């Protein structure tokens, strides 16, 4: 996988993860182009796109678009399932996730993504294992936060 983007129906970027080294300018250009193309597509259309020499696989969940870029020889369907698994993970973690969860806790979304995909490849496909790893790290974090006045609850907003 080359990169993953999450953006809202209004075209606002919510999360971006790049697995190939690109300059900031290039990243911005790609993001702009892709958001435009994907938003312009009708709901009944195919979830795959050919874009430059890459394949774009996207899927919409509520108001959020999840969009991955893969190479030509990769499998499109499994990429769709990767997206779905990620959404499942978010859902389990946040408890019926919504766009706001990702806006206000996007660092958590990143942590989960890093635990699930590493360097563009699926790292751990067992849902249980991913969440366990996140929880362990969170636990450590919360212990320290409590010393500072138990802010974890407030942070969720």
């Amino acid at each position, binding site marked *: 996988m080359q990169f993953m983007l999450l953006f809202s129906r209004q075209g606002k970027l919510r999360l971006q993860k*790049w697995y190939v080294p690109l300059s900031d300018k290039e990243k911005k250009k790609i993001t702009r182009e892709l958001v435009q193309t994907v938003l312009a597509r009708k709901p009944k259309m195919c979830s795959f796109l050919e874009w430059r020499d890459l394949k774009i696989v996207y899927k919409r969940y509520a108001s959020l678009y999840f969009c991955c870029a893969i190479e030509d020889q990769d499998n499109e369907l499994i990429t769709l399932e990767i997206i779905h698994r990620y959404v499942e993970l978010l859902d389990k973690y946040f408890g019926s996730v919504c766009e706001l969860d990702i806006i206000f806790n996007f660092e958590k979304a990143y942590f989960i993504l890093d635990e699930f995909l590493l360097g563009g490849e699926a790292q751990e496909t067992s849902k249980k294992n991913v969440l366990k790893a996140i929880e362990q790290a969170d636990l450590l974090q919360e212990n320290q936060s409590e010393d500072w006045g138990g802010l974890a609850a407030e942070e969720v907003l």
Partner: protein
Amino acid sequence: MSDVVEKTLTALPGLLLSLDSQPGAAKLCATSRLGSLVRSITELTSKNVGEEMAEPPAGPLFHTEKPCHVRAIYCEMLGYEASFSYIHAIKLAQQGSVLEKRVGYLAVSLFLHESHDLLLLLVNTVLKDLQSTNLIEVCMALTVVSQIFPKDMIPAVLPLVEDKLTHSKEIIRRKAVLALYKFYLIAPNQVQHIHDKFRKALCDKDPGVMTASLHIYLKLIKESPESYKDLTDSFVTILKQVVGGKLPVDFNYHSVPAPWLQMQLLRILALLGKEDQRTSEMMYEVLDESLRRAEINHNITYAILYECLKTIYTIHPKSELLEKAAKCIGKFVLSPKINLKYLGLKALTYVVQQDPNLALQHQMTIIECLDHSDPIIKRETLELLYRITNGQNVSVIVEKMLDFLRLSKDEYTTIDLVGKVAELAEKYPFPYNSWFIQTMNAIFSIGGDVMQPDIPNNFLRLLAEGFDSDEEDRQLRLLAVDSYLSLLECDTSGLPQRFLQVISWVLGEFSFLKEGLEPADVVERLGKLLDDDAITTETRCWVLAAMSKLCGSSDALCKAEKVAHKYTSCLDTALRQQAVELELLGRDVDLRTRVLPQHVIGFCVWLQVDSSLSFLDGFVSDALARGAAPYKPPHQRQEELSQEKILNFEPYGLSLPVSLSACSLTDRQSPTALSLSSSLSGNSADPPLKAGSNLLKLEGVKRVWGKQGYLPEKQATEEALAQEPSSIFAPSHQQACSESQQTTFSTIVEQDQEKRQLASSLFVGLGSQNAPCLVRTVSQMSVKPTQKRSKTTSIHLTSAFAQNLSDSTSEAVPAVGNTEVVEASEVSSLSGGSGPLAQPSSQVERGLESDLPSRLPATLVGLLRSDVEELCSGESLSLSACKVFDADALVLAIFLSNISDSSIQEVSCLISSEQLKVPEMCSTFSVLSFYLNGLNPQLEGSVSCASQATQSFSLTLSLVDFIRPLPLTTEEYGKMWLSFSHDVKQNLMLLKHEEEDQLEAALTALKEKLCLHIVDVIGAEGIMACQLVSGRPCLLHCHTHGGMLAIWLRSPIADLPDCLLYHCQKAIQER
């Protein structure tokens, strides 16, 4: 930069201390500030206000606070510059608590890219954390290492990461494996020594670690499948276990066991089993199992099915599996879900080259997809059609592609598709000339200035050099002139520059063909083009060049000079030169008549170009003497440049634009590859261009490519039919097949008359042409179809003779005597008359030799041939071969004899060669055409039958086998000599000093041993000529003086003189 770092470093401890005293308060205010920031930024509309907000956030407090970094990440994501916080992110990862470290690492991995300077500051932190006893810290360090890490710093952390492979926690082991995978990607040679440890990871008891190790194996096996064949068994076993549900339920995804793992394994198996029958056989069972298990109607099962299909079609084919796979493709294509339909088309595109019948089965679906509302589906359908294009349906398919192009806006698609259309238009003998011109016009106007520059170049070359008959060439050019003249009458402002250039070139070169058209008219029309301000200077040059060609008449000259005069003081040098040249041409009548002879078709063909640029030799040596640097060819310069780049630590060249250009280059064959490489691949796109790349070949060369395809092959096929008694079975098979196709045609329920028509025009000629597949379906013999552009070409001779053997056994063949079947493989064909051939000494060898002539096909009987050589023999089969030197081919007659007493079954014989290429449309019958590619090709093969294990043999073909005399006159010789660029000179010692006429003797020896043609002997000099069977000439010049023979060889092919010289040397020594 270092200043900033230093300052921050000194300031921070103090800040940290002051924070620690009142952490709660700081945290509180920072956190709520994040929330408000997010809210306020979300409400913003203008970017400027946002930047103000992002810029001076919280004074000194900002630097150490975790949520502030989260803020920075957020700002950066929204597109605001937050580079000032990068250094603090690194500080945070370095010095913060676990909590802060986590955010720090995240920020670093999001902010920085692999070659960012600041990353060097991170190395120490990572080292420290890798050694930490806290698992979470180790995890974080490994995570960041496998995301971004500078290439040069890998050796520093490598031993630590390696250690982690034996860690007790599986999560650490898994992350370590992935970190190594990342290292392997960016610096493969640095992890070479740990390949053993990868094997240990593969055998890890935790499925997660094992899955992670497969990423590495996939890459490794992709690079060298040979070295990992021994692992096939393990991969198959793992897959069996996974498919059988032996993994923990955790790894299930929608009740499918570990789909990601299955996919990886299937991909690896595909790589391992490719072109390897033995390895493939190991995996048939598990693939069958996977196909069977994947029955639940869910995306994930389809994903696995798709991967399974690809594997089945990649490995050595097995008919049962192929049948099942074909059914699965049906599931995809006929699915109402659009995503599955898309993948179905993709799968069809992948397999259709091997089995076009599949496309026939789904033709109605394909037609529907052509009119689909989603352009992506349409695009994929066109890709599929592109693969099944043949001479009969090319016009319909091209029309569909052009329709799509007219609606498409995407530049990348346009470039790609325009290239494909142009390739098809040039590759296939077009139905009628005007179609070709119209198609090319459409390509130029649609492709405009974004298309590959070789498209117009190839087109112009085709026009200039012509290919069929003179009359047709003339017609084609006239059509082009006509269409361009009418185009110039309309508004030209919308036409792309490239198109204008093509127009002006064609008009300049060929407008004289149109009777009644005054050159002055053309000049005037071209002149109008120049009035347009939007036209570039490059195009202006083309227009002026065209005008100079038209200056034959004084009227035209007058007009052209008037136009050119404007540009004689132009700032652009190229344009000014063109204008000045035109003026000069106008003044000098002699020069004009010499340079512009009237009405010579294809004038450029007659030009003698000294491609070795020998007239510059003096200039070059002078310059070198003055200390100039020697010339380096562009590729060498580029190499050196890239080497320098490595030293400069430039960013990795992995960015998108690079991959774009690389991709587009491979997509289309570049013109240089066509003209320079000596490969005569069987690709039918080449011939007209190939002929053009070497002008001299055009003469005296028999036409090989006609409108119906490859001519000699067809003849040969027919001959084989007529002569070989064994092939009588074949026609009936073919008939049966075509009948069965007829029935598939008719059973399809027709919904729409138009669609049916379209279908019949699209899929015409698909079935009958692809004979290998027919054989497979009829006789159940596995045939590996030859793959385009594959390095090693292999053919299974499961042809008529094999069927004959198996068929005849069922009729209980009399077990007396030897069953012999002649297998003739024709090697290349293109000839240039007849000359004296060297007679190879023929000795009678065993009984076989004596009745050989009766076994050879009638056409080969009278020809010179080599001895029959036994290549291999086993218990029941013996295989011998002899080379027959036909004038335009090397025919290899292969004799298979049954030396046992019983009948034999299922004979299969496989011949392959690294250096010989096999044309794509290879006949099923026993005639195969090889094209000479390398200069010393070796044939390797194996033969097997039911009662005997596979035996392999090899047969070396020498260059001499392909040399034929080239009859030339001394004048022709002289002309050719000058035009060839590759030469070799050497003095050879003549051993027999006592001979009176040394030259005569040497020449005779060469003539006899190497089949050379002696063109002329003048005094102490002799000239000889020969050619390869493919028609490429080589000229020799011999000169004797004092017991030495000075040989000078010249040829248009680079290696030929060298190789031939070696054989000359041998011939002279053996004399």
